[in-house]
């Protein structure tokens, strides 16, 4: 089986310079002389640049959105609007690198726009991931649940794609169910749906 190529992106790292450690934004692509893949690596480098440009452009748009929401923390409409911007990953064909893109945006560059600084990159990625999925919902659906409720819903992969199931979950949300009880209810609804099928 052919080995899957690792996806790459610009990331923050430290290098040694003048005897000091210095933080830099570095491309993942490496040109290894004599590897026979020098030009492919440069092609990868240019793709990384393209992604970086798209990220910077998206951050500019998000900054404007952020200025409209002084209270951004768990603000569902802020997250929804940002989620719309984050659809660029699909529009530009970067879906397979979205995890890395969230890392770059929410951990390296602007954690303040994505729920604040997190302890590690994996944790930081969840916030933009939620926003991204929120951006795929209709406004009508969004207003039927709070941020925390949506956060729970979106922990279940692809659950929102099943319109019927989502409708039933949103009804439950409207009844005020949240956190663990909501999670259990979603599991139950999903299993019962599977059984029917």
């Amino acid at each position: 089986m052919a080995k899957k190529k690792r996806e790459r992106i610009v990331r923050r790292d430290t290098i040694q310079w003048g005897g000091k450690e210095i933080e830099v934004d570095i491309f993942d692509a490496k040109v290894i002389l004599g590897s026979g893949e020098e030009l492919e690596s440069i092609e990868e480098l240019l793709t990384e640049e393209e992604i970086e440009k798209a990220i910077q452009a998206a951050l500019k748009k998000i900054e404007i959105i952020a200025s409209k929401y002084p209270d951004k923390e768990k603000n569902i409409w802020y997250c929804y609007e940002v989620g719309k911007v984050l659809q660029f990953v699909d529009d530009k064909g970067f879906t397979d690198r979205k995890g890395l893109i969230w890392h770059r945006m929410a951990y390296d560059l602007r954690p303040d726009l994505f729920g604040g600084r997190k302890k590690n990159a994996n944790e930081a990625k969840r916030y933009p991931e939620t926003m991204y999925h929120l951006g795929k919902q209709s406004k009508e659906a969004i207003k039927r649940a709070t941020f925390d409720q949506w956060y729970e819903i979106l922990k279940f992969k692809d659950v929102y794609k099943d319109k019927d199931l989502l409708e039933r979950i949103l009804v439950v949300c409207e009844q005020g169910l949240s956190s663990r009880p909501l999670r259990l209810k979603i599991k139950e609804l999903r299993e019962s749906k599977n059984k029917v099928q």
Partner: protein
Amino acid sequence: MKKREVNLERTDENIADQYPILHLCEGLQKDAGQNSWDAKATRKGKAWKLVFRYIPQLNSLTIEDFGTLGMNAKRWKEYQSLWDTTKAEEPTLGARGQGKFLFHYFAKNKLVLTESIDEEKNYRFSFGTSEEYDDENKKLGDFIPNAKPLDHQGTRIWIMDLKQELRDELLDYKAFMNYVAATWWEIIRNRNATFIVNFNGTDHKVALPELPVAEKEKVFPPNEKIIDLGRVKKLVLRYCKNEVPELLRGIAVQRGGMTILRLPVSAEETIRNKIYGYCTFDEDLESELKKVELPNHFGFSPKRAWNHTREYIRKKSDAFVQEVSPAQKKREITLPQDLIERAVRIVNDLVREYAPELASEVTGPRGKGPDNPPPKPPKPPPPIRIDTFRGNARKLEYDESLITECDLVNDTEDKAKISMQVEIKHEEGDIKFNAKYAIELDGNARKRIDIPLVDFQESIDKPGEYKATAVLENGEGKELHRRSFTFYLHEEPPPPRGRVFLSTMRFLYGKGKPFERSKQLPLTDKGVLYIIFDHPDLAHVRELAGSKKAQKHEVFLYSIKCGIDEAVQKLLEFRYNEGQLDTDEIRVIKDKCDAMYYDAVLSPTA
């Protein structure tokens, strides 16, 4: 068998990519000139004229020829096709039938109109893009109301609505005329060919290029044979009192009246800039060279015909340089003729060649292992030694030649009588080449040894690894020094092993960092070179490149240049620490660096 689907939409861009960046206008006049000169009505090109005219109201360029055959039905069909030509077999200039697609690249909407009148006064008109054309349903007036159709035998091409970025460059009519003069001087001089450039409402006739007065001229005996390929008709070299304009420096290699390229001479800059010349060939050799000419007419593939021709010119020009150089300046500067594939190894080669002491303990892509023992401390070089011994490529194909550079150095005060055995051997033991040279080497001198080109043929030579070894002996048969290199015939060479100076290149953003203004950071202990990706110079390079394909090559070249800069920097430091850095040494290192830049930039794949 099913016919493959072909998407021609980007043909013009792909073809434009084959031209050296920043040389598109030069390419345009070359292709227009060669198409038209190929179509001359008489053998000597009587009353032949080519007119380039810019029409501001239409933002269009017309290219109109006179004294040509025009296109009859057969030529019309060939003209409208891509890569479908029999010209490669004919003694004409064009070979691939693709150059005209460059015209489409210059037009914003790729629209090109063509009119032609043949010997029987048949008028033909077509309009089209790189993808499609139509020569039945419309006429010139449908595109340009009130335009007068072509009224003489010949052809007129309309490049409609020029792209702005190319138009600005194109309309520098003086530069354009210089390109024409530098390319077509031979037919302007010998055949009275007329080129008119009218980009500002005035006809400007292209005159012969202005050259400084020659202080020394050498005309080499005509009809010298280049192995079994043909003969050199004329080789003329001139050394001028003043510098020659940049466009005309070097030796013009002519084919069918067109300058294909100018070979730089191997000399220090002050001498190199004052030399120009040209070389013409008989029909046989022209035909051989045509087969290996690049489709963009800017150079040749490194095949047998070109390798031997180039080698002939190089030897003659080296001798000429020796004649015109002041006595103390006779130290030769070698000029590698590598292609881009070799540029990958160029940095490491340079270091291995000139300062093996600089090679760090970093291993090549094969990684560490039993094959890569820890490096030994460097030995001081012997006073009488083989200073350079290397081939032109690590990989050769059949029909290509091995060109071996070999320089000896005598650092002692005394003249040395020595001998050198050179052997090229296949890994299975077959000897490909074996020669012994008796050499007299003056004290404190350097000498180039002319090792003949070695050709490889599929019917004779085995593919695989070959090793070239040179052994230097004194009069008593005692070995003084030994050098070798390995190359591969018709087989992919393995990645380099062992110590290398530079192993990896990485890219980072420098904005707001203390090294923001640097192009690269100093090489790390592990042989990693960090290149500043947002340095204005690299940003500019990418901006100019346009297409992604071109960008890729430009970024690659830029990276190689950064590597060369780093190696040169380290080499200078090293020589300084050794106390060996004098003006001559700085010049040698600088010229090496220039020569590598030159080859990398001119490379056809760049």
